[in-house]
């Protein structure tokens, strides 16, 4: 269970998140929606420990462990994952080798034996089969020369391999055409299970046509101004974000 309590965080000394509280239980899907500048990216980067987005007060715990005291790699090994809006390209680092390193880092953390390259081939093949992904991904370097859609698919492949407790999907729909959006969203839903919670960050309601959230939170000016069920997305569709700017949750 991820518990965020009165989180204040920012960028370059300026508070952008002004007291976020949120509880995400196992298997739940939460959607964070908000206009540009609401603090959505700050929220995700603070959670995963980006050094330029530090928390100044509040707490974040995952299964009772204080994430804010951990380095980013420790948070990841504890089960926190973020699918990036714009994943970096890493020339020279093979995609499968990268995934194997990450997979083994998690296994080592859990006290399990590391997977050798042959064992990992079986694991990656199974995940790629599940996500209907081309074997070309195995031969290429991490995100190098990928299209926007391929990068997003690769993020979801990483999520499939690492099986996080909480996955934050940071505007995973940005830059995708309708067909690619559908494929990525369907793949995400294939990975949903009772142990994995999703936090879906998005501008637009259209992603929620495919990923059905249990809870929707409207973020505005660094605060959650309204929380509700799936019907909130439809309300948002008709009113726009302006209707929520001043309303405290």
């Amino acid at each position, binding site marked *: 269970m991820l518990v965020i309590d009165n989180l204040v965080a920012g960028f370059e000394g300026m508070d952008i998140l002004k007291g976020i509280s949120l509880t995400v239980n196992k298997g739940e899907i939460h959607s964070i929606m908000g206009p540009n500048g609401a603090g959505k990216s700050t929220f995700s980067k603070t959670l995963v420990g980006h050094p330029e987005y530090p928390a100044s007060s509040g707490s974040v715990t995952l299964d009772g462990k204080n994430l804010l005291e951990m380095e*980013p*790699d420790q948070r990841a090994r504890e089960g926190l994952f973020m699918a990036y809006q714009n994943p970096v390209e890493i020339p020279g680092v093979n995609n499968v080798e990268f995934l194997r390193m990450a997979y083994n880092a998690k296994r080592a953390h859990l006290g399990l034996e590391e997977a050798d390259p042959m064992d990992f081939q079986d694991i990656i093949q199974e995940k790629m089969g599940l996500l209907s992904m081309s074997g070309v991904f195995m031969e290429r370097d991490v995100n190098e020369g990928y299209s926007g859609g391929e990068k997003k698919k690769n993020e979801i492949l990483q999520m499939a391999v690492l099986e996080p407790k909480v996955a934050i999907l940071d505007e995973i729909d940005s830059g995708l055409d309708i067909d690619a959006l559908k494929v990525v969203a369907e793949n995400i839903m294939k990975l949903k299970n009772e142990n994995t919670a999703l936090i879906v960050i998005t501008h637009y309601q259209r992603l929620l046509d495919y990923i059905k959230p249990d809870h929707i939170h409207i973020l505005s000016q660094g605060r959650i101004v309204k929380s509700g069920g799936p019907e909130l997305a439809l309300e948002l569709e008709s009113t726009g974000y302006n209707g929520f700017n001043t309303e405290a949750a």
Partner: protein
Amino acid sequence: MNAVAIKRAGTVKTPDDVMADFRELLVNGCFTKELVGLNAVGLENFNQTGFPGRKSEKFTYLDVSDLAKAGFHLRKEPSQTTPSQVEAQLLPSTHKSRVVFVDGIYMEHLSDISAIRDQVELLPLSEAFTQFPEIKDTTLQRAIHEDDPIANLNTAFTINGAHLRIKDGEQAQAPIEILFLAARYKAYPLFTAPRLVIDVGRGAKVDFIIKNTKEYGSYLHNSVMDVSARESSDVNFYHISLHSGPAWRFFKLNVDQYAKSSVKLVNVSTGSRISRYAYDWNLKEPGATMEIRSLATLSNKAKNHKYATVRHQAPGCSSRLLFKNVINDEARSSVDSTVIVEPGASGSFSEQLIRNLLVSDKGRADNKPNLMIHADDVQCSHGATIGQLDEEILFYFMSRGLTRDEAARSLLNAFAREVTNSIKEPYAAAVVDETILQRRGE
């Protein structure tokens, strides 16, 4: 007496001093008589150029003044070395295709080319000079035009070298390993001057692996290789210079390429007190192609310098130069490379790139990629970059559960692979993998 000082105690030698010592050495019969003419050319050239100082164009970025103070000694006879000591240093693929130098002197009885005898001829340079006057003439002509002072010291003080010929149309059935062994002498630092002349015949194919062994003491390795790659020949050099140490290493490669020949060099080094790799390359006939891929991973106070001159002398030739450096601690790297497209060399293609990864605040990288074009219809580029590890990429790794050190190691390996992946000889590649790629982050 086996060892002869080439510096008077407590003094820095002038060229006149060196000349006087050389005459003394000649009188004492320290050199091989067949090579004395070559030695004399080297000494005369050195006398003309003088000891390299910072005003010397070839040594702008490299201070070698402590060489003159080191008190090197030259050995007439090399230290006793057994075949088993040699074999312990060889790659598994080269036990019967090896050319061995000990203390800078070619060792006929330790060398073995039985696996490639049908394709390759190997002779002591002294014997090659006697049997084949044209080899002597060609080598002398090259030496006469040598303007690199350190290479001239090799010519002046080489005791005996080797001549290798790959026969026309033949493909060497095993890679040829050129092994430089040097003993450690507690009393003095050793001066070694190995010389190798290689003639790759028309249509011949061969791979060379050049290796220095682990060094425990300070000594001067100053080798020169003269290479002729005849029409349509195909040559690969894998030069692996590992194990940082207190040695001074100077390596000069002179290459003449003829029509449609291909010569590729991969150089991987970990640096030493001073390492200098100088390449003088002539693309003499149409369609010749050359490539240098170089990686230096430097630490402590290592100084590593690359100096390359490539001349396009005929139409339709191509050159590719890639120098990559990883600079840790207070290490220093410099690359000074020049591609000259001479008049008439139309249709030339050339690209030069120098890439440096500065991993410490105190490291330094100097880059000088030069391009001189005297012909029309050419496609040439040159550039240099200096950067650090990308923080966003490091964070991406960490957000997947890898530590910062693991991330940095992986990125440095990725940087290196562009060069190391070019080593196609599997045993040589394994040596590089084990010693270069695995030691990252130490």
